[in-house]
């Protein structure tokens, strides 16, 4: 049932369904997942977008970057709006023979992990047919870099600042793929722009499923993470190579690490490139750095075990 799985970048379809002229920051990592999703998902499509960076920057009236029907209602309800669209098209297809488009729900980490969590949970439980893509820039970036439930431990944001007493966010990051699996989703995966073939194929695979699928995309943010925009893909690659952002997929009960990392790079290499983490390299924060390293290792080992037992 898989459609359009590729082996090289050259096989990525040429046609663009997303136009430049938007106001996203120079170097923004979100657009790659948008372009790829609109190419990898076959047939007619509708995008439902929650409030956030992508939504405000790509649809400043009267300018829109979207070459497909695109719907925005509010911040916390993209999956609920999508549920209504999906149900309507199912009925209209039955009653009038209208062709049902594939629904892609696109939300940032805010609209997924926090304010949008209830709507996502409900839509997953009801089993609507849609692809959910979270472009995760690990904070509420659109409103000026405030922490979210997806902000990683130790990160500096304006509402979890690296202060003299508390050195950044102390809570851990929620695990979206595990949450999706707990809802009985058949296909869920992590994605990263530095691994474009892996990313494209995951989208193509998710598109072949009926019912909800969840894709968790690492979206580098030069503005909020404080690094030079030109290094976006470098930072993204390091996230994978340090095992901080494991690339894996879950399909009908089986876990598979899709990009194995035999010799992980030191986490310090990843942290020193980004202003939001640099304070963790100070001696007084060593305890937090060690905690983070332990958790990255535990998470990786857990995934390795899961991929072994679920073969």
């Amino acid at each position, binding site marked *: 049932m898989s459609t359009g799985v590729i082996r090289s*970048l*050259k096989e*990525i379809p*040429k046609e*663009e369904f*997303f*136009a*430049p*002229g*938007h*106001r*996203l920051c*120079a*170097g*923004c*990592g*979100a*657009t*790659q997942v948008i*372009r790829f999703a609109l190419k990898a998902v076959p047939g007619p499509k509708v995008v439902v977008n929650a409030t956030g960076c992508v939504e405000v920057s*790509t*649809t*400043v*009236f*009267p*300018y*829109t*970057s*979207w*070459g*497909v029907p695109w719907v925005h209602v509010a911040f916390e309800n993209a999956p609920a709006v999508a549920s209504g669209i999906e149900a309507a098209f199912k009925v209209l297809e039955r009653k009038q023979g209208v062709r049902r488009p594939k629904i892609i729900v696109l939300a940032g980490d805010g609209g997924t992990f926090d304010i949008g969590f209830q709507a996502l949970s409900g839509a997953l439980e009801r089993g609507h047919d849609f692809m959910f893509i979270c472009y995760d820039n690990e904070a509420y970036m659109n409103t000026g870099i405030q922490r979210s439930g997806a902000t990683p431990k130790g990160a500096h944001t304006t509402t979890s600042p690296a202060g003299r007493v508390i050195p950044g966010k102390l809570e851990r990051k929620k695990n979206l793929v595990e949450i999706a699996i707990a809802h009985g989703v058949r296909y869920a995966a992590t994605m990263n*722009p530095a691994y*474009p073939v892996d990313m494209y194929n995951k989208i193509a695979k998710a598109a072949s499923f009926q019912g909800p699928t969840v894709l968790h995309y690492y979206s580098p943010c*030069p503005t909020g993470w404080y690094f*030079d*925009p*030109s*290094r*976006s*893909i*470098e930072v993204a690659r390091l996230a994978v190579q340090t095992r901080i952002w494991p690339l894996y997929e879950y399909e009908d009960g089986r876990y598979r690490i899709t990009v194995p990392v035999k010799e992980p790079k030191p986490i310090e290499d990843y942290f020193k490139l980004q202003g939001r983490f640099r304070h963790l390299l100070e001696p007084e924060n060593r305890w937090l750095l060690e905690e983070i390293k332990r958790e990255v290792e535990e998470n990786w080992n857990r995934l390795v075990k899961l991929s072994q037992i679920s073969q």
Partner: protein
Amino acid sequence: MGEFNPRSWKDLPVGNVIPLPKTSLQFKTGNWRAMKPVLHEEKCIRCLLCWVHCPEPSIERHEGDRVTINYDFCKGCGICANVCPVHAIEMVMEG
């Protein structure tokens, strides 16, 4: 692509929609940049990494996987120069 240029409240479409696709092509973001990418075509190996990673996208893919840069929209982020495996793209000061 069609153009959508309402002038007053009287020529707005029902539901506050933007009734055409890709109207952002009318909004040139090329004036954002301080540095601009210059492609040295003789070095290019047509790997398409710049086309894949350009955020706008302002790199266009042509026959035989030749690429060109669309300076109307390029914001000068420098990702293309950074990812090019053969350093075929050089960032130079704008004008």
